[in-house]
Structure formats: structure tokens, C-alpha cells
């Protein structure tokens, strides 16, 4: 506020002095000019007080109809001059003020000040999102859906303006600024005590690196999620201990390999890390056989490496001869024409990856390829989110949108700390195991992406349960966390995925699992189930009811009066 206030004061100096002078001269004049009484005799001039009163209501053009006495002509002459003078004075002041508000520098100062204030007043946990491009946008929607707060720093003004049009539950503080300078990050709450983590998602690897370094040095304990598109940046970030580095191209390559190895696991993974509101993917299995990869860029390279590891025959199509010479079978060209595709053996291939930087080229490649071989398994790279309609119309088997891949990864890390452990388990498990789990989850929760949450059986997260376990030494099973908090015969729409005790994992624990203080649990379910479960965890009376089926007297007196064994049975 300070800088804005001083800016206004400094700019308003001249008009204010002019106003004071006009007032002073008008009042002085009016207090010197004699008046006239009804009989035409001159009277004493107005006193300073009356003059001030008269000028005050005249100068502000309020034109209060109260005249102390009929004026003499000399007074009228002077007041005429005063009226014009004061109008000029006020107009000058107001115009200066308006010009100041129009001034882009002033508006920036105002916006920055407001942003700083709003961030410092945040008293809920929030994430700091740097760069709200497509990935940032997806994540904001996901965080909003999870009722998490966030602060946005974005360099592009139009993106910020678009942000204001989106219907988020909460109004997120947003700043138009380059996120690289540490001052910007500090202002956006990097060192704020409620900041949960920093998401560096700009489309510039250099900026992401700068954000990561700033976060590492200024708030070392804060988790940092960084998008890195090249291996060098990723290595650089890893060298100073960035917790989570996300390379969308590499991730997608891994997923494709996983989908080939264990399609169920891939489906489960995609579902659990999905963007809230989306549905479970249809099952598609990338076939083994000869594959064609068009475009050997970062994306194509990652795909090719992962496919090769799966033992799949590869043909590369790329315009640059230097690149394609790495692989035995390669064609120089783009792949949009039938001739190149035929040369690459499209008729005998089982799958094609269209991975160039251009959406139009990618679509052209796959349309031609499908015409030549309708059974092809098509993997499409989509670069622009805006082209979604076209990609939907084509109905590829797998579409890779870098921004979505990054968003998926971020969500997996942000939603529940235990999820990454569970996902590691999923990646190791067999296809059949994953299919069974999907069926069980689907039966309980439906097709939509479930809400995931972790629970720590500690005094802070689950006071009631922790107390019952530690102080009352009760034996409690997982079952009581799965029951409805007011109708205990009903089960909540939630599913335990993982239990962690002293570093040992128990995957999909059953209801008879005995709970111990300090356990960490991962659940999938609906937001409502999460809320009801929190009630059981936090409220002793609810917990007692869920465990015993009896309503326990709430107050201390009633509890003391009721039979002794009521609470401890």
C-alpha cells in the first residue's frame, strides 16, 4: 500500500497546492469585501468562518442554497471569479487523479500491491503455480476441484485475464510477472508459512530452472515440482536436489511401454492420477510387432527407446538423415505422404506413432496411415490443446498431450503423499492384478476419477482415533473407517488402497486389518466419503458410535453418570 499511497501523494502535489491557493484567495477576498443591508447601507464584510463556509459549498459545486445575506455587487463580482477559479482547481485535481489511474505504471504498482496483500493474508494452505499455460490451467482446475488454494504467477497478461473469466470456487491471487526474479517468488508466497509447494510449469526450461534454484535456496524444505523438457535441464535440476522433475516426453514413453506390458496397470495408473471429473479409459492394448515412429524429436526418441526396450521392431521416419541413421531401419521424410509410409512398411506394421511438432502433420500422417492399413494402433502426439476437437474426431488409440501428462504427474504427487508409493506398486504388479483391482474399485466407486486421500493415524490428523488407540488401548480394525458415521450398517464409498507401517507396505488391506498409531493409509473414494471419514477420525463420539453402534453421552457429566462400561466395551 505504501508505494501506491506515496505515488498518489507525489503526483497530487501540484493540484493540491493550486486548490489550497484558490481557496485561500477566495476566502480572503470574501472576508474583506463589504456587504450591503436591505436599506442599501454597507455592512461589515463576512467573517473568515462564514467566508470559508460559503466557499466550501460553492467550490465543490454543491450549491447549497443558504446565503447568509443578500450580497453587494462587489461581493457578487468576487464570488463569480471564485466560482470559475474553484471549478478550474477541482477539474485540474480530478484530471490529474484520473490520468494517474490510467497510468500503466501506477496500475501495475496497484495490482502488485494488492497481490502482495492478498498473498500475505492467505491463511489456508496453498500451492504456488508459476506459469499458467495449458498444464497450469489443468492443474488449477484440479486443485480447485480438491478445494485447494493456489497463487499464480504468469508472464502473459492475456492468460491472467482469461483466468479471471474461469469459474473457480475461490478467487486466486494472480500476478503478471516473470517468475524468474526471486523477489517475485517471495512476493507470491515462496517463504509464506502456508505454502505447500512450488510448481514450476512455464514453457521455458530456463525459467523453471531459475524457479527451482530460488525455491531450493530460499525455502529448502518446500517440495518443488518442475517441468523439464530436455535431459540436460532435468540433470541440472536433479543436481541440486529438486524433488520432482517431470519430463512429459519421457513419462509418456514409459507409459506406452507399460501399456504394452501390462495394459491393466496402465489403465489403473491413468485412472488414479486422472484429472477430477474425467472417466476411466477404455482398455486398449498396444500390439507387439513392427512399429513406425514419425518424427525423432524428444518425444519420438523417448518412445523409440521405450519401444525398443520392449523388443519391438522399429522404423523411424524423420526429415533429418543424421538422426535416422541411429536406427537400422529408417526413412528420410515427414511421413505425411503415402509413398514414405509404404516405404516404411505401413502395410505390415501394427502400430504408428505420429510425434512431430506439428498437429496438422501428425493428423495427416495418421489419416494416410489408417487408409493404408485400417488395423493400425495409432499413438498421436497433440501439441495444442485447442485442437482437441480434431483429435477427438480422429479417435486415436492413445493421444499424448504434454500438458496433460505433466498435470497427471503433478496430481499424483500433490494429492496424496502415499500415492506415488502405491503407483510404484502398480508398476510392478501383473496385469491380472490390476484388472481385478479396477473391477473392485469400479463396483464401489463408478467410472469417474476417484478422490484420493492419505490419512495419518497421528494426534494431529486423527485425534479421536489416535486417542482411542494410544490412551484407551483399544483394538480397532480398518472396518470402522469404512463405515458411515451416522448409519454404521452402510459402507462409505471409499476403498483402502495402501497401508504403510514403519516403511512396510500392505497393498489393499482388508477390513480386518488392525490399525496402529502412526499408520498411514491411502484411500480412494468420493469427496463425501472423505468428509464422513474425517468425522469418524476426529470426533470421539462418532468413533464410539461407529465402533460399538451405541450413542455415547456427549458431555462430561452425562458420561460420568452413565454406566462405567459404556465407553470402554
Amino acid at each position, binding site marked *: 500500500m505504501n508505494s501506491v499511497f*506515496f*505515488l498518489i*501523494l*507525489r*503526483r*497530487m*502535489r501540484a493540484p*493540491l*497546492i493550486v486548490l*489550497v*491557493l484558490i*481557496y*485561500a484567495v477566495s*476566502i*480572503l477576498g470574501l*472576508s474583506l469585501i463589504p456587504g450591503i443591508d436591505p436599506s442599501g447601507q454597507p455592512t461589515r464584510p463576512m*467573517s*473568515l*468562518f*462564514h467566508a470559508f463556509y460559503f466557499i466550501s459549498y460553492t467550490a465543490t459545486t454543491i450549491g447549497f442554497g443558504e446565503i447568509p445575506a443578500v450580497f453587494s455587487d462587489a461581493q457578487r463580482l468576487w464570488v463569480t471569479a471564485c466560482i470559475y477559479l474553484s471549478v478550474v482547481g477541482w477539474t485540474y485535481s480530478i484530471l490529474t487523479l484520473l490520468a494517474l489511474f490510467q497510468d500503466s505504471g501506477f496500475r501495475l504498482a496497484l495490482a502488485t500491491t494488492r497481490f502482495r496483500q492478498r498473498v500475505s493474508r492467505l491463511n489456508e494452505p496453498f500451492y504456488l503455480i508459476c506459469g499458467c499455460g495449458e498444464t497450469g490451467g489443468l492443474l488449477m482446475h484440479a486443485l480447485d476441484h480438491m478445494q485447494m488454494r493456489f497463487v499464480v504467477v504468469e508472464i502473459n497478461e492475456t492468460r491472467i485475464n482469461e483466468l479471471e473469466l474461469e469459474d473457480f470456487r475461490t478467487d486466486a491471487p494472480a500476478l503478471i510477472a516473470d517468475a524468474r526474479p526471486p523477489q517475485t517468488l517471495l512476493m507470491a508466497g515462496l517463504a509464506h508459512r502456508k505454502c505447500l509447494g512450488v510448481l514450476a510449469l512455464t514453457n521455458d526450461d530456463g525459467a523453471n530452472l531459475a524457479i527451482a534454484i530460488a525455491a531450493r535456496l530460499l525455502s529448502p524444505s518446500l517440495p518443488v515440482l518442475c517441468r523439464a523438457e530436455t535431459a540436460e535441464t532435468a540433470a541440472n535440476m536433479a543436481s541440486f536436489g529438486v524433488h520432482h522433475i517431470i519430463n512429459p516426453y519421457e513419462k509418456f514413453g514409459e507409459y506406452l511401454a507399460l501399456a504394452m506390458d501390462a495394459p491393466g496397470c496402465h489403465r489403473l495408473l491413468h485412472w488414479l492420477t486422472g484429472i477430477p471429473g474425467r472417466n476411466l479409459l477404455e482398455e486398449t492394448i498396444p500390439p507387439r510387432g513392427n512399429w513406425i515412429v514419425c518424427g525423432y524429436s524428444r518425444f519420438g526418441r523417448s518412445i523409440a527407446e521405450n519401444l525398443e526396450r520392449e523388443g519391438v521392431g522399429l522404423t523411424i521416419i524423420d526429415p533429418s538423415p543424421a538422426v535416422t541413421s541411429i536406427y537400422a531401419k529408417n526413412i528420410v521424410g515427414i511421413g505425411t505422404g503415402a509413398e514414405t509410409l509404404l516405404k516404411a512398411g505401413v502395410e505390415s506394421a501394427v502400430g504408428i506413432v505420429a510425434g512431430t511438432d506439428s498437429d496438422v502433420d501428425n493428423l495427416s500422417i495418421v489419416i494416410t496411415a489408417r487408409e493404408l492399413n485400417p488395423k493400425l494402433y495409432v499413438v498421436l502426439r497433440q501439441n495444442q490443446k485447442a485442437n482437441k476437437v480434431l483429435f477427438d474426431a480422429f479417435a486415436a488409440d492413445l493421444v499424448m498431450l504434454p500438458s496433460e501428462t505433466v498435470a497427471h504427474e503433478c496430481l499424483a504427487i500433490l494429492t496424496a503423499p502415499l500415492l506415488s508409493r502405491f503407483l510404484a506398486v502398480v508398476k510392478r504388479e501383473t496385469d491380472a492384478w490390476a484388472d481385478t483391482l479396477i473391477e473392485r474399485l469400479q463396483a464401489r466407486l463408478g467410472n469417474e476419477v476417484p478422490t484420493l486421500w492419505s490419512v495419518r493415524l497421528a494426534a494431529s490428523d486423527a485425534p479421536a482415533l489416535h486417542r482411542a488407540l494410544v490412551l484407551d488401548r483399544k483394538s480397532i480394525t480398518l472396518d470402522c473407517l469404512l463405515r458411515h458415521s451416522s448409519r454404521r450398517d452402510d459402507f462409505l464409498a471409499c476403498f483402502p488402497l495402501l497401508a504403510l507401517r514403519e516403511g512396510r507396505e500392505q497393498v489393499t488391506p482388508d477390513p480386518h486389518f488392525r490399525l496402529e498409531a502412526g499408520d498411514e493409509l491411502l484411500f480412494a473414494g468420493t469427496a463425501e466419503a472423505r468428509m464422513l471419514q474425517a468425522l469418524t477420525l476426529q470426533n470421539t463420539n462418532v468413533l464410539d458410535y461407529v465402533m460399538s453402534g451405541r450413542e455415547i453421552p456427549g458431555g462430561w457429566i452425562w458420561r460420568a453418570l452413565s454406566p462405567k462400561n459404556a465407553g470402554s466395551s
Partner: protein
Amino acid sequence: MNLEKVIFGFFIVLAATLNFGFFVGDIDVPHQHHVYELFAAIVVNLIATILKFGDRTQIGAVHLATSLVADLQLIAAAIGWGVAVHVTGEGMTPSVTAGIVSLSGGAMLANIVSVIILIAETVMLRR
């Protein structure tokens, strides 16, 4: 020579001198304290205050503070005069005059501080 500095110094010193002019004289004798001098002191003080706006240095802040104190006391004195003469009809009795003049005395102290700061600033600059 800097014209801005001349104007700045001029108004600060003028505010102090006008204030002194109103203050000087027996404290409870109305005819020794002319109301126009109070009027002039208020106007010049207001201008001096506005001239001090927007200076973000430490010394600038103290400057502004002293001026605001002087304004406050002088305006209080003016209101006292207005109430006594026009509202209650009591007129400039010795007790009313003493009140107004002592308020302006307080303002004068603030103005003297302002002048001292001005001198200190100048001395620091010239060394």
C-alpha cells in the same frame, strides 16, 4: 541554485514566521493576535505540508510528520475561534484567546522542528 529548494525553504520558513507572528504577544489579549495571521499561517502550513508529500526518505517522513502536527494544531485553533465567535457567541474572551494562542504555540514548536530539520539537511548537504 535549485528553484525547488528555494520554494520549499521559503514555505517552511514562512509557515514558521507567520505562526510566530500570531503567537507573539500576551497570551490572553485578543487584539494582540489577529485572526488573519492565523488564516495565513494555516494556508501556508497546508502548502508546506503538500510540498513535503511523496518524499520517501527518513528525513522526509519526519518533515511531513512535523507539518501534519502543525496543521492539526492550527486547524484546532481555527475551529476554537469559529466556535467561540460564531457558535456560542462567547466572543474573544481572555480564556478563549489563551486557548487559541496556546494551540498555535504548539504548532509553532512543530514548525521550529521543521525548520531545524531543514537547516540540518542543508548543512549535511553542503559539507
